[in-house]
Structures are given as C-alpha cells and as structure tokens.
C-alpha cells in the first residue's frame, strides 16, 4: 500500500492491521517515533494524521492509507513545528528525551489547530506521560508558545483542576490507581475504566487490552 508520509509517497508491504508505529519504525526505518506501551497509554508514539494528533501504536496502517502522516523526522520542515522545537531547546525541556518526540508532536498539533490556545487548551492537549518529570518545563515552553505569561493562578498550575482536564477525568484516573490494589476478580472492570479515561484523549484506543484478555 502507498503511504503519504512527511510529504513523500512511500510503498509499504504490511498487513492492513499492522500498527502504524511499527510500519514507521521497522518498514520505513524512521525511529524518531517511540514505542512506550503499545496501548494508547503514554503518547510516546504520537504522530499527526491529517494534522490530528494520533497514537500510532493503536492505529492500523490501513486506516491512514489516504491520509497525510507527519512524524517527528519532518518536524522542522513545518513552521509551527520549528517554533515548538526552538521553544523546547530554549526551555531545555528534555531529560532522557524518550517521550519528547511525542510531546513535540502533541504541541505542534495543538498550535497548528489553534495558534493562541488558552492554558486550559494546553492542559487538555498535553497529556503524554513523561517518566523523567519534565512536565513543568513543558508547561513553561507551552505558555511561551501560546503567548501566555507563565504566572498561572494556583489552581491551574497545580493540576488543571478547572481546565480542560476536568475533575471527572482526574477522579477516573485516581479511581483506577486505587482499584489496581484490589483483588483480581475486578480486573476486567478496571481495565475498562482505564480505557475510558484513555479514550478521552485517544479516540483510536483499541477496543480491548491485553490485561483484559488475561483477566477474562
């Protein structure tokens, strides 16, 4: 099948249900897009599909055959992407760097859609995990890019409670964390909860998880 990726047309020989992530990494040899979980949980694999931020680890390649795909390799060819990279360097965002391809893609997708997002828009869009805890540096870079003075009132900086990530989202996540400690019988239900929380940010989340299969 033909893929339109980073402005080029590339022929790939992959089954239609292969996740886009592995086509990009193994078939096309572009390793800037990362594998962290394979389950739409972390965002390390984020790419843009027709400008929309997409978790490529759960996106079947056949579903994007007619779309324009942008990966981190082409980020500086995009004016907005270039600005994002500059802000990332200016604010010295990365630590290990492993999550940062996905973070930069998420930032770029947001700013391409909305050049002056509110703090709430930023919090709603920047949901990828970073195990190195670069969240505050990302926040600073994003406020800079959005033209918001980074003196956010306490309630916002403290966790987006009033923002796009409403209290409901937070509560759902916490409930899962607490639930993880409970006995195995509840496994399926918990996986569904986790999925519900995940789906708010990743419409591509596949319908079942490995954990669920094991629990079932």
């Amino acid at each position, binding site marked *: 099948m033909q893929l339109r990726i980073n402005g080029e047309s590339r022929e790939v020989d992959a089954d239609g249900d292969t996740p886009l992530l592995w086509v990009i990494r193994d078939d096309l040899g572009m390793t800037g897009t990362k594998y962290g979980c394979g389950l739409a949980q972390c965002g390390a694999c984020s790419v843009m599909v027709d400008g929309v931020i997409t978790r490529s680890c759960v996106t079947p390649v056949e579903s994007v055959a007619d779309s324009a795909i942008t990966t981190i390799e082409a980020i500086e060819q995009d004016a907005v992407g270039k600005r994002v990279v500059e802000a*990332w360097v200016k604010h*010295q965002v990365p630590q290990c760097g492993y999550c940062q391809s996905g973070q930069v893609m998420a930032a770029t997708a947001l700013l391409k859609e909305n050049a002056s997002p509110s703090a709430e828009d930023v919090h709603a869009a920047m949901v990828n995990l970073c*195990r190195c805890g670069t969240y505050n540096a990302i926040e600073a870079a994003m406020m800079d890019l959005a033209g918001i003075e980074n003196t956010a009132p*306490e309630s916002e900086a403290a966790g987006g409670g009033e923002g796009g990530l409403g209290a409901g989202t937070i509560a759902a*996540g916490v409930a899962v964390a607490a639930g*993880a400690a409970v006995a195995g019988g509840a496994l399926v239900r*918990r996986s569904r909860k986790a999925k519900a929380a995940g789906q708010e940010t990743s419409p591509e989340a596949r319908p079942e998880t490995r954990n669920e299969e094991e629990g079932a």
Partner: protein
Amino acid sequence: MNAPADFHRFPAGEPTNISRRRFLLGSAGVATGALVLGFGIPLGAPRALAQAAPASPDAASRVPAFIEIRPDDTVRFLSPFMEGGQGVFTAMAQIVAEELDIDPSVFVVEAAPAGKVFQVMIGGMRITGGSMSVRLTYDFMRRLGASARAMLIEAAARRLGVAAGTLTTEPGKVIHKASGRSLRYGELASGALDLPVPDASALKLRDPKQFRWIGKPVARLDMHEKSTGKAVYAIDCKVENMLHAAVQHAPRLGMTVGAIRNEDLVKAMKGVHSVHRLDGAVAVLAERWWHAKRAVEALSVDWQEPAADSDGRNMPVDFGSDAFVKSLAATTGDGEEAESEGDFAKAFEEASQTVEATYHSQYLHHAQLEPPSALARFNPDGTLELWMPNQAPEMFQGQIAELTGLDPSQVIINSPLLGGFFGRHFLYPAGNPYPQAIALAKASGRPVKLIWSREEEFLRDPLRPAAAVRFRAGLDAEGMPVAFEAISATEGPGEGIANKRGKGIDESAVEGLTKKAYAIPNRRIAQQFVKTPATLAYWRSVGNSMNDFLYETFLDEVADKGGIDPYGLRLRLLHGNERLTNLLNAVGELSGGWKRGPYTAADGTRRARGIGMASPFGSEAAAIAEVSIREGQVVVHDVWEAIDPGSIVNPAIVEAQVNSAAALGLSQVLMEEAVYEKGEPVARNYDLYQILRPDQMPRVHVKIVESGAKMGGIGEPPLPAVPPAVANAVSALTGQRVRSMPLSRLKFDS
C-alpha cells in the same frame, strides 16, 4: 554493586597523550591531526595496549575514554558515564571545557565503550549510578582539560617561536598578546600530537572565582537532537541482516518451557522466521518486530513448575504482595543492629510518654519509558558485539564473557542513550534481555534485536523492595524524643540481587533510617532480614527512596505526640548543625515562611503543609509540600525544595533534576505500586500501573544551597524528602495519620 566501596576507586591515573597511537585512533573515527588525551594509561602503555587490541572491525571499542581536539575546533569527548536524562554529558563537557578554555557548546559527547583496555585505564569498575559521576571525577576532569590546554600552549610556543610563559588563552585560541597573534586550538592540535603531557604538579587549575562555565546554567548539549527525534536509544539501533525478536516469559520466574501446543500454526504465521525455546521463555524471530510479537503472544505453552530442589529465586504461586507486606509488619524480634547509640531500652523504659507504630512501603516498577532491548551480533572475527541499555558496561562485559566463554576483550559493548533508567539497567538475574538476544543470534546465525514489550517488561522488571518498619520512640517531659528505635523487616536490593545475604547488614536496605542527623541521644536501627519471593532492584535513591518516608512520617507522629510543631522539632533536633539548620531555614524561606495549617487558600480549598528531610548520596535535602483533598484524593499544589550538594556544576541541570526526582517521589507517594497476586503482577502496562500524569504535577520551587561541603550527588538526592513532605501535609490536613504509601489506597474526607 555489592561493594559500594569499589565505586570510590574511580578514577585512577593521570591524563596521557595517546595521539601517537595513530594506527588505532584512525580506525576509531578520530580525525587526522587531532590531539587525543586518554585517561590514566600506565607508562609504557601504548605497547601493552597494542597487544591487547586484536584486529577488530570496530577498533572504536578498543579505544579508551578520551578527549579529542579536532582540526575543525570541535572537541569529541568519550564519557565514562551514560546519559539517561541526568545531564551528565553536558556536566562532563563543562568541567573539561572550563580548564581547557573552550566553549562547552563545541563538545560532541558519546558514551565510552567497554573493554579490557578501558578497565585497565580507570583501574576499576565504572558505574553510572549512586549519583557519583560528577562528584567522583570532578578533579580528574579538570586536570584532563588543564593538561590539554597546557599542551596546546606548548605547541603554539613552538609554532610562534616564543616562550610558553608569554602565551595565554581565550576560549578556543592561544594568544600572544605582545604581537597580537593568535592560533585556534584546531590549528594547533596536530602540533601537540607528540608532546608529553605536563606533569600534574606543574598544572595550574583555574581559580573557582574565575569560572566561566562551571557553576553556570550552561545549555545542555543534547536538547535539539532530543526535541527532533534524532537521539538514538538502544531500541532504535539496527545492523544489516538483523532479525527482530519478541519473547513470552513464563508467568512466574523459575517455570520452564514444556510442550508448545500450536508451534506449527505459529511458524506458519506471516513473517515468522523461527520459534525458539529459551530459559523460562519462548521466542519468535521475524523480519519485523510486530510479526514476532504477535506470533510469540499466540504461542500456547505448557509452563512447567520448577523442580522442588531448584535453587533459583523462583516465584511461588501463592505470592501476593498485600499479604506479604502484612507478614513483614507482623514480624517480631529485635533484628540485626545497623546503628546504635546510647541505651535505647533504658531510655524508652524511663520515657515520660512513648509512641509505637508500624509503617510500610510498597513494591515499585522502574517504569522507564523505553522498554529494555538488546541487539546482539557475532562478528566474523569472533567477537560478540552488543547494543543495549546499561549502567555499567564492564560488568555486563564480564557477565557476557562468562556466559559465552569468550574473553572479555572479545565482547564489545555499545551503550546508546538511555530512555530513562532510575536503576533499571544494572545487571539483574533474569532481568536483562541480553542473554536471550545472544542465544537467539547464536541459534539463527544472524544479528538479533530483541525488544521486551511493555507487558513482558512489567513481568520481569525487578522491583524496588518493600519494607515494614516497627518504630518505637520515647519522649521526655517536654515532648522531645530521647529514645528512637526502627526495626525494618525487609530484604535489601543488594541481598536480593545476590540472592543471598552478604556479611553484615545490606546498607542499601537501611539507608535513610540510619545516618539521620537528628540529635536523639538513644537510638537503635536494625534490619530484620526477610527473604522476598520477587526479584529486587536498585531504584532511584535506593534505600532512601522509602526509608526517609518511613522515618520522617513517624517523626511527625512523634512531634504530634509531644505537642511540638514538626518543623520546630526538626530545628531543635538539628541544633548546632549549621549546615542542616541553614537548609531547613532556606526551605522555610523559599515557601514564604513555615506554616503547617490547615488553612483556607485563596480559592477556598482547605490546605496544609508538611516537611521532610533526607541526607542521601552525599547531599542534603529538605522539602515542603502543600496539599488539599479533592474528591477523597490528594492534590499536591506546590513543592518547595532546598538542596545542598556542597557545590555544583550546573544550576539549570540541578533544577531540572530536582523537578525530575520530585516527580518520581510524588508518583511513588501518590499512586504507584507493583501489586502481585498468585505469583503474578496485576499490572502489565501503564493502564493499571499508574505513574504521575501532567495534570498531577505540582509547581516545584528550587533553592540550591552551596555550603562548600564535599560535593554530593544530584540525580537521586532530591527524591527522598518529597514523599514524607506530602504525607505529613496530608496528616496535618486530615488529622488522619498516614503510615504507608501509596496514598491512593487511602480515602480522605475533603
């Protein structure tokens, strides 16, 4: 890692000019005409080195850590330490550059390879861990830079026909002021190739007051490549003709592969090259990793219980982490003493009031975002080459030599960037993918890259130990603690990895309970060894990661019992300790003055603050956290942390590391735990193993205090004070005593 004393053997020797070994350097990618200084080669070493270096297609692996000043004015530096986000590449460049007198931004830094030659040169093992990289090599790196500078000056003196004493340097250039002439370092490098390295005693190091780069927030060298996907991690490595591998591990460690029920079916699946039986796992090789993963997960294996007499660390079918931690808390007995002062028993007996409580911690995953991988290739010359994440290349090299029967010099270790590590990439029995990759490369006759899926990683990731600590304290008539006992029922990571007890106490089991600075006259700290069925590991800040939580939260309980404010209690217990009094005052000021609360914040929420202190890895830290409760769960608004590592190299990196360590500490105290039921982990991915999300990250305010004390670590020390600060704030706010992590297990009233 069992003998922390070994760490301090690094580094040995003096810088040595190895430019003359051109035959070797040329094939290692060193630019022609570059000046190359190596670490501490013994005199006469070039010959010995030449002998130790058999013909190899990749001589880079035979070249020791070095600094290379190239004709194009860039400087290549091979770092003995791995970069995994902690900024060590930049810090190393800063230190060398300061004395070399060149802008650190011209440095190109790579991880030095492992090799017998390399080991000879540093006179011992090297490890990226224990927050030691900078503090143990600081002087050495300065001398290395100063030696190179002196040689460039000498080369310029010869070129210009003037005395070396009439020359000075400016960043990247040697200057002859009298004539106004100047020469760039790149132009001079070739002239310095055959010069001797100046005697160490003749080197003049810069006056720290005149540092231009050390102590400044120099920009990190790896920001652009890490913001554009160009940074290369082990998982990204590829070589020609490589096969991809995926594994399915036995559900419990120790089980063995029995019959595979659908092997033929799986062999016929698309892309499958072959199916393999490994030690406690099955594997599929394929031309694409996705095919390998899908196929290996489809394999239906009859896993066999281990033989009753097998002596490995087998996971029993009845292991449940909740029940196990409960059993730790139920232990009795005095344990083995790790630290004692005065007469605890007598002072406790005579105390006006006493407090007793049992606290516990939880098992944790490293959960570094890059899943482990290993790429193995047998080279035509008989060497075995590996690309894999590791925090100690020579240790891996030694193990692989043992495993394969090769000489260590035939084992080439490439160490790409680490996608986070936090202790994950040491040698762990059954916890590293390289033995499987090697076996598969051998079986297939082709290079093999094995990636552990996230699910396989969470099945075999060795855990941060859990502990239950029985505390007792005796208070005098004024409410001050005069007797303090902690007995920790646990197995230390060192003991767990060795799978046996060493001589005496495993210090990494009790650090953070021991060596507290508080002046409590009668103390007794002990370990009650209890073997854990799960495999164990080092985790960022090791024993301190949990022990400071356990100690500092109990200390708040003691303070409340005695009716003394916990911040005030700490100040009194640190009376006469100038360094820690200053630190405590610094964090108090940073937070706008200590106030415990509860109080009502501007937005109407009820909030309170807590304090925690820790003395990990040669540094001192104090943290204050402010919390509120929303829908029964804890929200952390702000963390203020003061850290005193003695002196520092880069304040921007320190601040980033405090943020990073605080995030991991928060993740631990708020929501993280690895739960086992029936011998298996409940969570196999981030859906059930929750880590701190962006919306849960508080603001972090950092105050760096440079007391001038001996240089301490930076990567780990900011972590341990944060969890107790949060838990103490929650206790202050809710009146509910917090005696365990994670807080997500507890319900609080708003």
